[in-house]
């Protein structure tokens, strides 16, 4: 059984993202132009993981839901539209006055324009009807996460890091630290009340030599609300 467990770990590693696996932006470019990056295309042809990633990306981009999921997906999308009254608010197309639509119909356009110009002497150039304008709720205040600066580790490391450090954020009661692989799969997460975190054996076990590791820190206030977030840092143990 021990051998089987070792075999399982080996196959799991083989099926996971490797150090040469392609980031999504490269896969996206290959979708648009397969010959744009010969090296990337060669890796794609040899990597089941990247092929699967590409397939999922294409699936996401497919605009229309299938018949069996259409109603449910539509219901969820409608929920999102309604809930957009929160941080992302209700959107709508600009509603165009009926008289402006006249100008979109070629055979009516000339007559309508002439009529408007002659009869009303008005140019629509500075039209300011405001009918398409959405009025935001009073007191709306966009939240944008502040930037949190990571200090170390970074770059290529001779051995596993012993500590993670970042700049303190005023008002932060705790920090959430997440280590992920290159495609965002969480390897391990931990928290700290200080702007540093010692690498425990569990954290070290989550990192492998040769595997790029991304890490991100989120500063939380006393209520657990995110008040600042780092962009992704990365390092690799040689």
């Amino acid at each position, binding site marked *: 059984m021990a051998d089987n467990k070792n075999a399982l770990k080996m196959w799991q590693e083989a099926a996971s993202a490797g150090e040469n696996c392609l980031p*999504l932006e490269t896969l996206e470019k290959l979708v648009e132009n397969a010959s744009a990056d010969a090296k990337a295309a060669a890796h794609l042809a040899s990597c089941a993981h990247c092929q699967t990633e590409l397939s999922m990306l294409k699936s996401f981009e497919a605009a229309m839901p299938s018949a069996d999921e259409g109603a449910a997906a539509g219901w969820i999308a409608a929920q999102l539209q309604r809930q957009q009254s929160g941080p992302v608010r209700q959107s709508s197309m600009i509603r165009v006055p009926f008289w402006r639509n006249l100008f979109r119909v070629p055979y009516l356009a000339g007559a309508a324009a002439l009529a408007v110009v002659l009869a009303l002497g008005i140019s629509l150039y500075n039209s300011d009807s405001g009918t398409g304008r959405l009025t935001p709720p009073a007191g709306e205040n966009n939240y944008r996460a502040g930037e949190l600066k990571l200090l170390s580790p970074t770059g290529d490391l001779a051995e596993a890091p012993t500590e993670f450090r970042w700049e303190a954020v005023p008002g932060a009661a705790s920090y959430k630290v997440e280590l992920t692989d290159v495609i965002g799969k969480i390897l391990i997460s931990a928290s700290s009340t200080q702007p540093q975190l010692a690498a425990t054996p569990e954290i070290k076990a989550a990192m492998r030599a040769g595997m790029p590791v991304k890490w991100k820190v989120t500063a939380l206030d006393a209520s657990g609300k995110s008040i600042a977030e780092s962009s992704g840092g990365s390092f690799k143990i040689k």
Partner: protein
Amino acid sequence: MAAQPSTVPSMYGVSPDPPMNRDNIAQRQRNAGVAPRHGHNPVAQDARIRPSIAIIREMRWEDLSDEALIARYRAEADKAAAEQYINELFRRHHVKVARWCLSVIGNRESAADLAQEICVKAYQNLSYFKGQSKFSTWLYSITRNHCLNAVRSRNSAPEMESEEMVVETLPDLGSDSPLASVERKQQAEIARQLINETLDETEKAVFTLHFGEELPLDTITRMLKLDNASGAKAYLVSAKRKLDRAARRWKART
């Protein structure tokens, strides 16, 4: 309504003011990601000087790419106008996010909760979008990771049936071979090659999602829309058989 060519005759003459050629402007903005100035209608008041004739037409939301919406959102000083851009941006992608959450989670209400979390997360992190990819690809990465992490956390207990089935039978490239002492990393490289060369497209996807992404088989069945009786499990069994044979051949060669 699609933008009309700039050669369309002007609808009406005007104006001592500089007239407009909106189509060229829209195209240039799409190319350059430039956020123009605008007034009450945030997509309606760009201008370019042409002699004596005005072409005035309403620019529609669909004339703006996602990236142009973001550029305008960032450049817009007026908060209400900026909100319109961002609302339109997210509205465009609601169905995509909904579909993906539904295919991963399977339950409509849970998928709706996940989709809402994803949209909020994307909105809060929009300042980190640097334009290195399309917005939809960036949103996909958030959707993908959020959904798959949610599935993993909800399925922390291993799937005993599939795990036992495969654990007992997956070939070991190390033992009984001249490369028994080969490090696991090298074995994994060989295994990657065997997976790619031996399995068909669906088997690769099932194998990758189950062992690489640690997703349960019922989730994979839904995600890949497999309609055979036993879903992803059948492909996993088939993949294992093929890999077993390929591993034996590989061992025989070395």
